[in-house]
């Protein structure tokens, strides 16, 4: 089952990275630029690194830390799974930003005066959003380790706290995916009205 979970984690990462690369490519072309394979290269290297982390991280780290005991193994596996949940939130957040920008370009023939999408202003959002999300992950994991150390939390408590983090990620997934869905509807209506 754990092998299946890791395989699905890699699949979701690959699929979302591919979608992000495609959406970014579309945005670069739609804003008059030319994409040079940088996005594909970054996505490929990043996904390869994450794949190695998924399948080789535990055996490698096991040489330095005792991961045979239940609590450390549980902390490691949940920390890893929550890291990947954070990666998926980051990827979907970036997809949402590019989709919003593409939507704005598509509607550019008659843009409403003075109205800008808060998620599409400059490249700051593409840096701030991942930074904020990874910071959330790091703070949450650090807090969990501190609570385990200070209060002697066991495996069951670690599981409950880690599952709660996944539900926090779920809120972001819901928000980002609904934004993309709404932007998609707006884009479809523009294309139907103007003709593709």
């Amino acid at each position, binding site marked *: 089952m754990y092998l299946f979970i890791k395989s*699905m984690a890699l*699949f*979701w990462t690959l699929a979302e990275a591919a979608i992000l690369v495609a959406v970014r490519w579309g945005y670069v072309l*739609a804003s*008059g630029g030319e994409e040079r394979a940088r996005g594909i290269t970054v996505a490929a290297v990043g996904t390869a690194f994450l794949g190695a982390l998924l399948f080789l991280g535990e055996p490698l780290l096991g040489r330095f830390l005792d991961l045979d005991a239940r609590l450390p193994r549980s902390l490691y596996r949940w920390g890893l799974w929550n890291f990947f949940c954070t990666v998926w939130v980051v990827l979907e957040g970036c997809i949402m930003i590019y989709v919003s920008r593409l939507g704005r370009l598509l509607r*550019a023939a008659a843009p409403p005066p003075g109205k800008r999408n808060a998620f599409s202003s400059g490249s700051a959002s593409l840096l701030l959003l991942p930074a904020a999300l990874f910071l959330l992950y790091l703070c949450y994991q650090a807090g969990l380790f501190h609570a385990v150390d200070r209060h002697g939390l066991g495996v069951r408590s*670690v599981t*409950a706290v880690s599952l709660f983090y996944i*539900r926090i990620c779920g809120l972001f997934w819901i928000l980002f995916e609904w934004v993309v869905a709404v932007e998609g509807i707006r884009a479809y209506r523009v294309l139907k009205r103007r003709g593709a």
Partner: protein
Amino acid sequence: MDLLDPAFLWIAARFTPEAYMVSTKVQGLVWSLADLLLVFVFLRIADTLREGQGAPPIRWRYALLAATALATPLLLFAASSRAILLLESLICGVQFLILVATLVLERARFLGLARRLGRRNDRG
């Protein structure tokens, strides 16, 4: 970090497996609805581009999406987190594949649209 300890202790005590199951099912349904909508709209956009070029409409991808829509309510009846994971893997996996397949199969049309937008925005 001491400030966060009460929060983590509260979560450890209160966030039971039952609470996790309920919240997962609720969230799963809400994001699955968004996924269905965005994949459907994406296919509609692809169909609009195909229509403009006289290409036949998409068929099997809509059928696969409909199958995932029928499978989505099964999340409500999942008895364990493992069952939810397997169901979500199947539903989201198929939807992801539809998205990626559409991006690949319709790439020329999407790239053409993006380039037309780029030229129009350059002139504007």
